């Protein structure tokens, strides 16, 4: 009896699951490894170690301008997105019952529609109103993609805040707006942070919308990398990719601190397309 418990204990580790999880991470490891190889060619495993390719990647004008453009658009999309989604989440959790299903349905629609259709429709509209190559279209398109998850995070947080506390503040003489800003808002600050991060990364990583709405010569980083990879693959693009992988790690740490990581896993997101 005593000896039988030891091998049993050992088999409690899910061997297949561990192997498969690691297999999913292999591509990222390969990218990082090829970015530090000293030679001007892709080699895995690497022959040595250098950080020179990171300097080259950052100094490549195409990558540099795309990176800055992507960052700028992602920041604007986060701000615009928050301005849109915070009131929406309040309306869904505290608004009138008859309005709630309309608003929450509206926020889900872009999520269940293929990106290609959203992108094509936006492009036709922007061409018609003569704004095809403006950044405004790109920003609004990115907000459309990131908005569903942001709303979901905010609604979950707002549902957790006891409305009685807000009402107590009002009873004590605070106006409804003051009560919201000073009582409810601080309570959902982590969720607002998560929502902002989601809006940022969904914009920063987006391919489909950017592919249609980027003006030629003014493409976001994923599109520039996609176009670059059509004709070359070298340690420079591996280094740029590694920078994006590190950024994702930072985002993951921030999200897990804010408690938003579980939303990413449990919800239908559109990472790949």
């Amino acid at each position, binding site marked *: 009896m005593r000896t039988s418990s030891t091998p049993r204990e050992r088999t409690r*580790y*899910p061997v297949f699951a*561990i192997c*498969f*999880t690691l297999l*999913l*991470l*292999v*591509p*990222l490891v*390969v*990218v990082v490894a090829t970015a530090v190889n000293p030679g001007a060619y*892709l080699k895995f495993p690497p022959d040595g170690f250098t950080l020179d390719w990171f300097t080259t990647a950052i100094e490549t004008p195409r990558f540099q301008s795309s990176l800055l453009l992507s960052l700028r658009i992602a920041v604007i999309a986060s701000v615009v997105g928050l301005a849109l989604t915070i009131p*929406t989440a*309040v*309306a869904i959790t*505290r*608004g*009138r*019952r008859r309005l709630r299903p*309309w*608003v929450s349905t*509206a*926020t889900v629609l*872009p999520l269940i*529609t*293929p990106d*290609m*259709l*959203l992108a*094509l*429709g936006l492009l*036709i*509209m922007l061409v*018609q109103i003569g704004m095809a190559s403006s950044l405004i279209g790109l920003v*609004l398109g990115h907000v*459309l993609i990131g*908005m569903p998850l942001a709303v979901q995070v905010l609604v979950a947080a707002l549902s957790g805040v006891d409305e009685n506390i807000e009402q107590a503040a009002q009873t004590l003489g605070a106006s409804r707006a003051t009560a919201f800003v000073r009582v409810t808002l601080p309570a959902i600050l982590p969720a607002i942070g998560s929502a902002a991060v989601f809006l940022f*990364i969904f914009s920063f990583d987006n*391919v489909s919308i950017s*592919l*249609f709405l980027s003006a030629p010569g003014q493409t976001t980083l*994923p599109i520039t*990398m996609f176009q670059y*990879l059509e004709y070359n*693959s070298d340690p420079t*693009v591996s280094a740029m*990719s590694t920078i*994006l992988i590190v950024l*994702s790690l930072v985002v*993951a740490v921030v999200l*897990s601190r804010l408690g938003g*990581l579980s939303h*990413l*896993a449990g919800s*239908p*997101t559109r*990472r*790949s*397309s």
Partner: protein
Amino acid sequence: MTRARSPEDEATLGRRGSWLLGGPMLVFVVALFGYPAYLVLRTSVASGDGLDSGGFSLTHYVTFFTDSLYLDALLNTFVIAVVSTAVTAVLGLLYAYEITRRPGLRTVLLLLLVLPLLVNGVVRIYGLQLGMISLDRVLLDLGLRDTPLGLQYSFAGIIIALVMFQFPFMALAVYAGLSRLDVSLVEAAQTLGAPRREVLVRVVLPLAVPGLVAGSVLTFAAAAGTFIVPAMMGGGRVNTIPQMIYTSVSQTSQWATASAFAVVLVAILAVSILYSLRRGLRSTAGTR
């Protein structure tokens, strides 16, 4: 005491407040989703192929279903979506069942599973291609193969990429259902002499079905709608509808053709998903 409040309407916000806060989102979605969707539908039935051509004709749909180039793309899209969904579902079920039975390292595993979801899709495909090239070199060096597999530009490569991308969603959706499984129940059934297969079908599967359906819908939609995966992994040889939509617009300015493709894509998705949802719900009802 300005107005009586019905018990169903326990809103903190008044009517004006509700509209003021919820209204902008409704306007946003109508302007950036509703109207553009209408434009795609309208353009797809225009008589000419350019923008603003007006008129009404179904030429673009007729062309779609009569031209072998387009039908091939349709077939490819469908096969890619079905195969990658099936593979992801089987792997996701195995994975979720194993971490339910053997909880060691579960938290770490789930964290590592979610991590790649935050990495840019282009970067992930690039990494996968580099990995496939390395795999070929290892196989050649070891003398296990005489010719390279060439997975990095192939139909199989597209399936592998989609399975890897969608796997976390499938595994987590199935796990959400299976985590309600009482492991001692499975062990009791086995102790009492129930065959392993019987236990899986009668006890485990019913709990997994809702997650499998949800995960499959997601995977199918992502696989049928993706542009970047076949564009990078297919090496220009595997044509799919999303790629045709993009090339019709960017290279030949065939707006109506592209719009018709988009409408067909959405129709395929809607029909497949509604069908599988009905089948899935029926099978859950049957096993209970």
